[in-house]
């Protein structure tokens, strides 16, 4: 290891409350980044991970102030410098790649012009040389046709390409350190895996330091040499990636690792009790003590010391006990019955159908957003719908709930056909069909008390006395493990995980047969996600509801579902019992999705089989997956819709390959696992026309 490029030395910073009391966001954080090293800062929302990373650039969000400590970059005390001096360093020597590149690029300039402008500001390159430098940079970030890309506007690029452009811009002036703030969080799994592989190559090529901020240990495991784990403004453990992920010394990273759903087994991960403390809260002892299963009185009253370990440092009194502790998940037992609760037959949904006059003018109807969707759910069963963004998974939920009337096909609830639009549905059919939303912030009325929110469905569907209402509301709060004292409060005072529990309680207030879960854990932190999944499973066991669980996260779907449908461009690729779908034989698309999943283990690399691409609409004829498929069956893929291949226990794959061919591919799967066919990370956007 060489000399430290960035040193964060006992840094505490925060804001001041109304009473001018210090409300720290970072507490006594010390961290170094060596030349050429990649540090991963991992933590949940509000842990201060981005604040640390931005402090390395001498940047504080408005309203924050440094209470004590220093941030040194390349010998410069960043907070002691004047603003112009800092600005000169930023962009030229230390650069930031933001989370959402699409929003930080200027929409009115071509990306080439934007990179050129950044070069003009931060480097001494002459005007003429800049043009060639832009093209160099774009090929450095593995954009296959730099000349074409440079002339494009940001909206003409895919999310992955935008992110690469942002990285090119940051690298432009020969920065020595790159701060990456959740750069792949909004991207699809396959795109994310490609960007991470590219970043790994980049560090070895350019010898720059990187600080990679993420909430996802799987992502960090791919890129980082060392990991720093943050919790509630404190750095709880730091150390070498491999050792930290294999054997964390602090209970928090251990619990965090334990709460990540794994693809290999159908287990609801171990949940961490409680929720992270509010930002800036005053405290005496260890921040993690209230949620730590190993905590003793001392943890709550004294600040834990830094314990030197073989691979790094941990701040904990109970390092020895923690080494022996291993959080365990709960294997899922199915509680499905034989009664079909909901059946969808040949569902097709279209957002845009041209009117008669425009059809006469030659406007052709685009292919339906969702088509040929068939599935049935039995009581007590969970059906997982997975797919990347644009796969139509949420659209199917909206059609079932009646928000978008389907173009054709039927939806049958308990054997009776449902009217397409919510306006034509009576209370008898809305009651058994409830929904839980992705964003609990938007799904709960901030002006109603928690009690009123929970009472609303009960008042609508049941004729209850006030005493019965009170009783039921209190039972519900018990069922979602929230204190009854919350009932008279408003949701604005609750944390994200608590809000989502209120959302779940509201859905169950109607005593539904089917609950539609739209990415219900996507907005939650991993540790809260695990407990939310466990809660959903428990409620299903006690109340026998069926779930349709929409998620982009295969591991989450694997943990909770009895049946899984993999969607691509609004068409089912593969559907069947969870264990069969996640085992070969696969549909070629499922294989790619599973291959791109990142696990928190530095020695497990994702398998990137094809070029990273994104499509904006399905092809009008042939297999929906024809353009990205790495193993096409032949020209028939372009002309015919794939037939259904039925495998064991109701596992159906829509593919032109025969079941025998798919099974034969499956036997070569394990060998494929080792040989990663990484196609230089080039990215190609297949446009609809």
């Amino acid at each position, binding site marked *: 290891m060489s000399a430290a490029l960035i040193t964060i030395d006992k840094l505490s910073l925060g804001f001041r409350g109304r009473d001018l009391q210090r409300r720290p966001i970072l507490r006594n954080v010390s961290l170094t980044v060596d030349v050429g090293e990649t540090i991963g800062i991992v933590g949940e929302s509000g842990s201060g991970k981005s604040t640390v990373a931005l402090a390395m650039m001498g940047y504080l969000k408005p309203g924050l102030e440094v209470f004590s400590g220093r941030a040194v970059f390349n010998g410069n005390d960043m907070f002691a410098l004047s603003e112009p001096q800092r600005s000169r360093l930023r962009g030229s020597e230390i650069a930031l790649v933001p989370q959402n590149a699409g929003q930080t690029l200027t929409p009115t300039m071509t990306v080439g012009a934007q990179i050129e402008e950044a070069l003009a500001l931060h480097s001494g390159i002459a005007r003429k040389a800049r043009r060639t430098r832009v093209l160099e940079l774009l090929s450095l970030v593995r954009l296959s046709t730099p000349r074409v890309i440079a002339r494009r506007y940001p909206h003409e690029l895919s999310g992955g390409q935008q992110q690469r452009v942002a990285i090119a811009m940051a690298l432009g002036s020969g920065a020595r350190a790159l701060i990456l703030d959740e750069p792949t969080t909004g991207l699809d799994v396959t795109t994310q895996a490609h960007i991470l592989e590219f970043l790994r190559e980049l560090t070895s090529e350019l010898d720059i330091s990187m600080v990679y901020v993420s909430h996802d240990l799987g992502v960090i495991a791919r890129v980082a040499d060392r990991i720093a784990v943050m919790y509630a403004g404190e750095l709880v453990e730091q150390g070498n990636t491999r050792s930290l992920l294999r054997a964390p010394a602090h209970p928090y990273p251990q619990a965090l690792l334990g709460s990540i759903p794994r693809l290999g087994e159908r287990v609801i991960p171990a949940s961490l009790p409680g929720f992270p403390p509010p930002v800036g809260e005053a405290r005496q002892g260890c921040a993690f003590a209230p949620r730590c299963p190993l905590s003793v009185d001392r943890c709550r009253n004294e600040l834990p010391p830094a314990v030197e370990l073989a691979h790094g440092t941990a701040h904990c009194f109970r390092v020895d006990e923690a080494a022996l502790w291993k959080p365990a998940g709960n294997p899922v037992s199915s509680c499905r019955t034989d009664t079909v609760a909901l059946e969808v037959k040949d569902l097709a949904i279209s957002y845009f159908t041209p009117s008669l006059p425009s059809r006469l003018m030659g406007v052709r109807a685009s292919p339906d957003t969702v088509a040929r969707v068939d599935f049935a759910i039995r009581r007590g069963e969970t059906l997982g719908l997975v797919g990347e963004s644009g796969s139509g998974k949420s659209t199917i939920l909206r059609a079932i709930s009646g928000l978008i009337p389907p173009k054709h096909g039927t939806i049958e609830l308990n054997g009776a056909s449902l009217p397409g639009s919510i306006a034509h549905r009576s209370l008898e059919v809305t009651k058994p069909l409830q929904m839980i939303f992705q964003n609990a912030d938007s*799904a709960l*009325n901030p*002006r109603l008390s928690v009690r009123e929110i929970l009472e609303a469905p009960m008042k609508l569907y049941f004729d209850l006395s006030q005493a019965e209402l009170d009783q039921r509301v209190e039972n519900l709060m018990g069922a979602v493990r929230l204190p009854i004292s919350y009932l008279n409060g408003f949701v604005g005072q609750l944390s994200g995980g608590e809000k989502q529990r209120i959302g779940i309680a509201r859905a169950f207030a109607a005593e539904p047969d089917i609950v539609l879960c739209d990415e219900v854990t996507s907005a939650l932190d991993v540790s809260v996600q695990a407990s939310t999944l466990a809660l959903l499973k428990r409620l299903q066991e006690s109340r026998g509801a069926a779930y349709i669980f929409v998620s982009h996260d295969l591991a989450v779907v694997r943990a909770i579902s009895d049946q899984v449908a993999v969607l691509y461009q609004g068409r089912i690729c593969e559907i069947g019992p969870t264990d069969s779908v996640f085992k070969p034989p696969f549909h070629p698309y499922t294989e790619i999705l599973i291959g791109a999943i990142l696990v928190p283990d530095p020695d497990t690399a994702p398998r990137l089989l094809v070029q990273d691409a994104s499509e904006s609409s399905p092809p009008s004829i042939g297999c929906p997956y024809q353009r990205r498929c790495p193993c096409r069956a032949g020209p028939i893929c372009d002309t015919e819709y794939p037939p259904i291949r039925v495998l064991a226990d109701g596992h159906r794959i829509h593919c032109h390959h025969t079941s025998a061919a798919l099974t034969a591919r499956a036997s070569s799967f394990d060998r494929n696992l080792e040989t990663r066919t990484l196609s230089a990370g080039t990215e190609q956007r297949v446009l609809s026309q």
Partner: protein
Amino acid sequence: MTDAVATDSAPARRRRPRVRINSTLRRVASRPSGAIGLILTIFFVLLALFAPLVAPYDPAAFDPDLVHLPPSAMHLMGTDSLGRDVLSRVAFGGRLALVVTFCAAIIALLWGGTAGIFFGVVGGRIDEFAMRIVDGFLAIPWLLFLLLMASITGGGAWIVIPILGFFYGIAIIRVARAAALQIGARDFVTAAKLRGEPRWSIIRTEVFPNVADIIFVEGAMRWSWMLIAFASLSFLGFGATPPTVDWGLMIANERAFMAVAPWSVLWPCLALSTLIIGINLLADALGKAVGVDRAGDMPA
């Protein structure tokens, strides 16, 4: 037994006020502009309420011997062309305007707010059609329209109330509709629709509490514009009519004597503009306190 349970849990279930008036007022007053606005507005409301106590003379009593006296210890604001005490007339002069415009503001709030929320929630063609009508009304020059309506109906303070209320309500429709549209896109409204809640219940429990403060702030803003409108109408002879003491009317009657007795015009002008500034500041601070930040747009 059920009775006992009900009484026990009754205090816990008591509804909290939706728009928290106390904390909002405190936030308004904590801003210098808000505090000034609040003081000015309260001052003029109290002045109007207690005018008989404040006024040293009968505002209608004229005296040919006291015409155009400059301000003095006897007549603090001087006297007008008929020898009436200007201070007494200023004290009484805001009463009618405040009552008329306040009533009109309430009418505008009620009908504009209701219609706006309704169109915002219902949406579709009904909303589209209604908004085109609103656009049409907004294209009419407001003062001419008021004059036309006043001359058709013969004018007078009590006729002006519904006209002002109707006309300014149209402007409130747009604001209320925009706010309701924004709230309608939130998932809790979707959730209520999916449950099958009746539309009026969605409007009442889900949408209204979230748009009430925006509409209320808009109403406060419109109130100050109505004061200008009413003063203009009085000035032109369609608002307050002579036996009534009114600022607009005072300005109209005395403007001929600006050169000899400027005080008889300046004082009512000053009172009117100070009140309007006060209400504007108050509405602005109110908007900031409840998180509605709006640019000071001009009357339609």
